[in-house]
């Protein structure tokens, strides 16, 4: 579904590349998380996958990005947006404000793409259903809470039925309830199958729980690309600024102090941590 080959990109008037020789493939239907410290190039990667680099942000680019069988650099943005959806941090700025109702806002993209009206009516209801905003269809977008606005932005993108959904820290400005709402929608989406999801996130517990695969980015380069359990607890990733859940930190501390000889990868999620700390392991050092 996604193929990136030796992608290197530098914004205009900068001396360092934001992305350097990045290569990876993502098969259809995979939930791939992208983690890493700030300024690692995660947002730049999101723009490169959705076509905003190079069509909106000029700069020095080399390498190739192919998404849904389209060469991104050679395909106009209007053709890409039907296949690749982009959701970013600030909920308010993603609501175009082109229409006065939630329903109108969701339909706006389809109107621009010339979708017949009968289809629009059905798809708007489906999209609102999927994000749990069905009851608010006639509300003004400006009256929604932050979490609701982010779900509206998501619905407006989902309604275009993208094959690839790219989310750049979609929950960073939301409270815990709003975060849970967004992740619930993502989980539902992944379960329904089909959509390839690329999610940039700092909230590693959620990443550990949802992602099939984690790509760690630091200094514009991929430093790890593996299932969550192998990336989110790796010392190299931690040294590069990826961060770890407290569960991982606790398990590492226990292992380092020889308090636990439980085998296997360090835990990332609560369930994994429970198993780790419950395991009957031999340690004569205590007692």
């Amino acid at each position, binding site marked *: 579904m996604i193929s990136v080959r030796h992608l290197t990109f530098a914004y205009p008037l900068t001396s360092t590349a934001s992305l350097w020789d990045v290569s990876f493939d993502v098969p259809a239907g995979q939930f791939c998380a992208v983690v890493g410290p700030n300024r690692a190039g995660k947002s730049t990667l999101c723009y490169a996958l959705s076509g905003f680099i190079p069509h909106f942000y000029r700069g020095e680019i080399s390498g190739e990005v192919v998404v849904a069988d389209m060469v991104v650099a050679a395909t106009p943005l209007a053709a890409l947006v039907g296949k690749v959806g982009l959701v970013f941090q600030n909920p308010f700025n993603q609501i175009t404000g082109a229409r006065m109702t939630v329903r109108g806002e969701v339909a706006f993209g389809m109107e621009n793409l010339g979708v017949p009206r009968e289809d629009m009516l059905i798809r708007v209801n489906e999209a609102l259903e999927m994000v749990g905003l069905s009851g608010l269809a006639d509300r003004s977008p400006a009256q929604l809470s932050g979490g609701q606005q982010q779900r509206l932005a998501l619905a407006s993108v989902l309604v275009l039925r993208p094959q690839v959904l790219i989310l750049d820290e979609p929950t960073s400005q939301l409270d815990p309830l709003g975060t849970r709402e967004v992740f619930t929608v993502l989980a539902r989406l992944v379960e329904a199958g089909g959509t390839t999801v690329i999610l940039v996130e700092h909230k590693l517990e959620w990443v550990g729980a949802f992602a099939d695969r984690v790509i760690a980015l630091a200094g514009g380069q991929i430093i790890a690309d593996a299932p969550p359990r192998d990336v989110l607890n790796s010392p190299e990733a931690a040294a590069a600024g990826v961060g770890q859940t407290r569960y991982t*930190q606790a398990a590492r501390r226990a292992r380092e102090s020889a308090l636990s000889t439980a085998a296997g990868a360090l835990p990332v999620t609560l369930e994994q941590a429970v198993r780790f700390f419950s395991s009957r392991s031999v340690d004569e050092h205590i007692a």
Partner: protein
Amino acid sequence: MNISLEHVSFNYPAGVQALSDVSLDIVAGESVAIIGENGAGKTTLARHLNGLLRPSSGRVLIGETDTRTLTVARLASRVGYVFQNPDDQLFERTVAAEVGFGPRNLGLPASDAKFAIQNALERVGLADEANSHPYDLHVSQRKLVALAAALAMTTPIVVLDEPTTGQDAEGVERLGQIVDSLKADHRTMITITHDIDFCAEHFERVVVMAAGRILVDGPAAHTLAQAAALAQAEVEPPQMIRLARALKLDASPLTVNEFIEVWRSNRTSTRSADS
């Protein structure tokens, strides 16, 4: 300088009751975290601390002064308020000038101001960026500039509104160190935060709010263990408390180290019980 909220209620002009009979006493040097979902009244409460909002009923005392008797600008010498969005305040051409804005307004003598600015920049780790244009920095760094700008005012009380949003792992750790260093300086720290683990690791006292009221107010270990109250406030307990609970350990560890201690002593006792 103590803080006292006495039976504070507040209605927004549109009629929304944002605070209902809230009473809170904070002693100088305490570190307090206020948690709860959006709309619970956390920001409304925080804004009463530096006079941005005046109670509809009740009163707020900073030191012995009723906030109604001083303008916000005058209260700024006692309470440094760090807003959530740095872009709501940045306007100077260099980081140093920006950080110096507060001290200049407070009338600090030039040499004191210079020292305060340098100190603040070092504390947030941006001493090297003193001559950079704030907008050349990443937004997470701009947040640190805004923090430095408030710290440079050397107020006895500091209010932080969602300091960790948008920060990466290193940024959150740096913030933790900053909070700890401010505690060591006996500054009173009040923070609004959604990051419950950050809250557990750096704040002695936690206030849980919902629907304009305080649900629970007490030491962190005690408050964060109140599962029902946290659920009502739409807040998840910290990871270590969740883990302890899942492992049926009778404790509320606030940090990784505390958890290890609890787990270790539990295994020791069960092992002794077994043998």
